[in-house]
């Protein structure tokens, strides 16, 4: 288990070091931010808002086809891109500035 823990840290560090990545937030299914690299207020905002959005997106996909499921969600905005990888219990949210 400690090695796994190190691996997790390694993964997150690798993502953080990629070009353009501005922040990472890990949220659990109840909306509690577990790990974050942003400041508290932004983290809380992202956690709350994105949680609802992922729920909605997932239910949309499943309503159209019950066999289907949401695998990834990208929100591209003028200033940056928010990428959300949902799982059964956790979401991994990464904010990246796309290359110009």
């Amino acid at each position, binding site marked *: *288990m400690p090695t*796994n*823990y190190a*691996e*997790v840290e390694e*993964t*997150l560090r*690798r*993502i953080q070091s*990629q*070009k*353009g*990545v501005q922040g990472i937030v*890990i949220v*659990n299914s*109840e*909306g*509690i931010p*577990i*790990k974050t690299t942003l400041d508290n207020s932004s983290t*809380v*905002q992202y*956690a*709350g*808002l994105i949680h609802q959005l992922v729920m909605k997106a997932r239910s949309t996909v499943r309503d159209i086809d019950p066999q289907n499921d949401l*695998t*990834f969600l*990208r929100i591209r905005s003028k200033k940056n*891109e928010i*990428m959300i*990888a949902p*799982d*059964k*219990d*956790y*979401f*991994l949210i*990464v904010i*990246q500035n*796309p*290359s*110009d």
Partner: protein
Amino acid sequence: MEIVHVYTKLRSEFGRQYLFSDRPTELLVDIPPDPSLAMQFITKTPRDQATQACREMSEHQVNTERFESESRGLNHMEGGWPKDVDPNDMEQTIRFRKKVEKDESYMNSILQLGSVMDHYIRQNNAINIYQDYFTEDQDIDEGQEAPSAKTINVFRDPNEVKRTVTCLSWHPDGGRKLAAAYCCLEFQKSSKDLSPDSYIWDIENPNQPELALKPASPLVCLDYNPKDPHTLVGGSYNGQIVYWDTRRGSQPVELSSVEHSHRDPVYKIIWLQSKTGTDAFSASTDGQVLWWDVRKLNEPTERLVLDPGREGNLDRALGAISLEFEATMPTKFMVGTEQGLVVSCNRKAKTPAEKIVCTYDGHHGPIYALHRNPFFPKNFLTVGDWTARIWSEDIRDSSIMWTRYQMSYLTDACWSPVRPSVFFTTKMDGVLDVWDVLFKQNNPTLSLKVCDEALYSLRVQDNGRFVACGSQIGAATLLEICSGLSTLQKNEKSLLAAMFERETKREKILEARQREMRLKERSRSEQSREDDTGRDADGDESPEQLIARAEEDFYSVVEAERKRREERHREKGVCEEKEVKDEAVIPL
């Protein structure tokens, strides 16, 4: 009663052939109608009726009660923490987080999500999907839109008795303000209630003037100082020059003394380019052009009398109605006179006689406007009587280009400061014409009827888009010209330069030819005068003898011509081939 038929067959008879036989009909049942039952029915005329077996529906309209809605936002607070963890307590939250991190499912899911995320991040970094792949051709070729102009605002004279807008001047800094001089120019028409005020308008507010300028006598002309946008100088109806500073209010700061001012209304006043920025010069129909220093208005600094004989004789002076000064040529200036002459003067001449360099005789009436082309200073525009003329400084005898004789009198004109080939004119029937010399020379490119009364003054703002024109009843209209007429077109300057060159050359050639002919005439008349002196030695011929001689000459010429024709006729009559042509040749 039941009617029953029983069929029986012996077994032995099965299979035997059928033996049919006829028998007469038997009446089985006869039920006669019962009249008593008929009472229960009513006979009715047959009619058609459609029926449909379906649910019945009806239509209704309902209006709900007014529903008030409000926009609200949602603020996220921390939440979702399990009951035993207090979100405000840092230690508890940290402990909770650490607990979750140790959870195996957490680790597995994060590892898996991490790899997925990694893939997408790299994808983003590899290609920018919003990159411009085809650089769009930015040159949007503006289609030839029809020239147009629209009225933006109308500034009306707030007084009861309406006066003509005689002069307009734009604020030099950006052109947000317009100064208008109001005066009743009709001789002896001014009444006691005529207010002498002139106004400065803010172009955004047509309801009320921004500042009223109150001189002693109405202003005929007005000019903003291009160096100091707060100061204005104006020439009034009684000949005085008035100087204002808008920071000091409506009353004039200084007035020129009556003895030394003009004796007639000052028709034009222009600021000069000088080191101090306080010099101006004015022109009036009394024949003088006076130079002033606004710091000391009691006496003009210089005086010029517009005497064509160059003697400074005020009696023979020409009345000046318009002035022209170009900052790029500070020593030269031009004056347009009431007699239709344009006088070109040099300020730096030693003697007053040399001040007047040359004159251009152009119009049949007073020259109401005189303006040099800002791009080609050698060419200037004059407006007077019913035409507008473009002149070149080198050609003295006539203008190089002119418009047709218009239906009504032209009152004012000016070049566009952005397009060298565009100029504007105003007419007495209330029409503002925009001429584009490169596009059309016979007619104005755009003709707008601004108002029903005569337009008396015109001024274009420095950006070339806004034009202000003033009418006889004191309404100054602000128009915006379409971008086609107020943006410099490519090659415009060179094309216009070529056009001016061509016209100037044409005039030069014509002038040379005229001179030649005149020379020939003169030499011929000199010769004939010598002969005449011989004849005259007999004595002066009386009128009858002159007439007789003229008649003789005439008849002899006619005879000679007729004889010549007859001879030609006889000659050609011999050749039959030419007879047909003869019919045409002899147009007697």
